[in-house]
């Protein structure tokens, strides 16, 4: 056993432990903010696995897309709406938990069985390492052109939808807020809320 191999093995074991325990914590923790932060950690660990497989471009893309965009957006959403309120106790929470853990356990056993019974072709094809970026570009613009364009159209649609949603005309009368003639009492000078107006 040489140094390179043992380093790789240790890295793999540590990353796998982080991924498994992290994703369990994401699902099981009560505090949603912790879950969101741990999700970022799990994404980072997955990027580490890609690095171990010599796929540095995929690893960087994983960090950029999942950690930098998806996870930050999740955190944003949580922090903007995070109200500390007592949730109503749900009926039959215990049986629900038992059922869902049964379903998840069954799925796990199924996947384990598949992964054990499949004949993996080992060792796989040699990794192309640094050339990967060029090869990904080549494939995107030749044999995967249609899925690539379809994904772009989907993103464009989402973007236009977001713009349409954000640009709903809201008319806030400035004189109502400024109230130069001082006709209203201080408590009446409330800015109309964005949501009240936009829902009309």
């Amino acid at each position: 056993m040489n140094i390179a191999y043992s380093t790789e093995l240790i890295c793999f074991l540590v990353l796998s432990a982080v991924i498994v325990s992290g994703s369990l914590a994401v699902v099981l923790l009560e505090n949603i903010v912790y879950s969101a932060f741990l999700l970022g950690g799990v994404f980072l660990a997955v990027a580490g696995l890609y690095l171990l497989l010599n796929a540095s471009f995929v690893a960087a893309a994983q960090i950029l897309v999942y950690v930098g965009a998806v996870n930050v957006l999740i955190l944003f959403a949580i922090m903007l709406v995070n109200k500390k309120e007592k949730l109503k106790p749900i009926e039959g929470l215990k049986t629900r938990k038992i059922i869902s853990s049964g379903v998840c356990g069954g799925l796990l056993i199924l996947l384990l069985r598949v992964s054990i019974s499949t004949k993996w072709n080992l060792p796989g094809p040699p990794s192309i390492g640094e050339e990967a970026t060029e090869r990904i570009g080549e494939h995107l613009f030749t044999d995967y052109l249609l899925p690539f364009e379809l994904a772009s159209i989907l993103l464009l649609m989402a973007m236009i939808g977001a713009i349409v949603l954000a640009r709903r005309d809201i008319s806030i009368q400035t004189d109502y807020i400024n109230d130069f003639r001082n006709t209203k009492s201080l408590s009446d000078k409330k800015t109309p809320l964005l949501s009240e107006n936009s829902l009309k």
Partner: protein
Amino acid sequence: MNSGIDLEMSFTQGVQNLGLSHELAHLLWIPLPMLLVLVSAVIGVLVTVWLERKISAAAQQRIGPEYAGALGILQPMADGLKLLVKEDIIPARADSALFTVGPILVLVPVILSWLIVPFGQNLLISNVGIGIFLWIALSSIQPIGLLMSGYSSNNKYSLLGGLRAAAQSISYEIPLALAVLAIVMMSNSLSTVDIVEQQNTAGFLSWNIWRQPVGFIIFWICALAECERLPFDLPEAEEELVAGYQTEYAGMKFALFYLAGYINLVLSALLVSVLYLGGWGFPISIDWFSSLIGLSIDNPLVQIFAASLGIVMTILKAYLLVFLAILLRWTTPRVRIDQLLDLGWKFLLPISLVNLLVTASLKLAFPMTFGG
């Protein structure tokens, strides 16, 4: 082009001659450049802090730090020591785990990004193929640390500062990446070494700034916004938010934010010089210069001279940009949050898309000058 000095090769060969295996020699080599770069990054920060204090003093017609060392050059060291021995306070209602991890998550990606900064042909930690893309990916981790520290401080100003920082860095990352993409398209490579090599064919005339003037300005504005420097320092706007996400921090944890900010500034300046100002290249081509003296480019003396000149040039260019950033900080007012987002989404984003399009068409039309 010549291959330049390869310190790694000579080191591993030297260790192997002592009777150690190749792998062990490589293992011994790995920490050395990392340590060197870490130390130089911290020294770079100390110099920048001193410059900041001196230049701000000059801008306000004061003298600035004077008594600690000659011209107050030891002042940043004293500041650092003070922060190091200060009491580490965690607010009572704060979330202590997230409160501690936040500053670390802000600092580590910035330091990791130094991996790709080249000071010469082989004078960088690792010439990874994805090069500049690694920096863009790593810098996208930072907002999570900022959100984390803003949230865990349990302070409304901190939370607002953290949210502002994350919003700002997301909006300015896109034009930044598009500006980098135009450069990458011209040099056909993501690697920082290739990007510099491609600019050093004819001295300063072949620098990317002449071919990408718009990209240069976009990149500089976005880099300033990512570093939260003054026209864009909304996350810590002291008149509105006390100190933003750093409000509750003290001692070494505060110093980590401070360090991350300045390391990021120096890093951005270095990357501007790598992407647009020819990196380690001297304004006059070294090949031409050595042939003038009559020495071969492979002469060891010329090689050592060229390597040290490369390091000096990289640092000189970077610090000229740092000087510009400091001057901007002390002479410009802060923009409002709506102006900031307008500038990012309605101005820089379309301009950088147009810049990319124009670069692509110029590359098709003039493959010789725009790297076909």
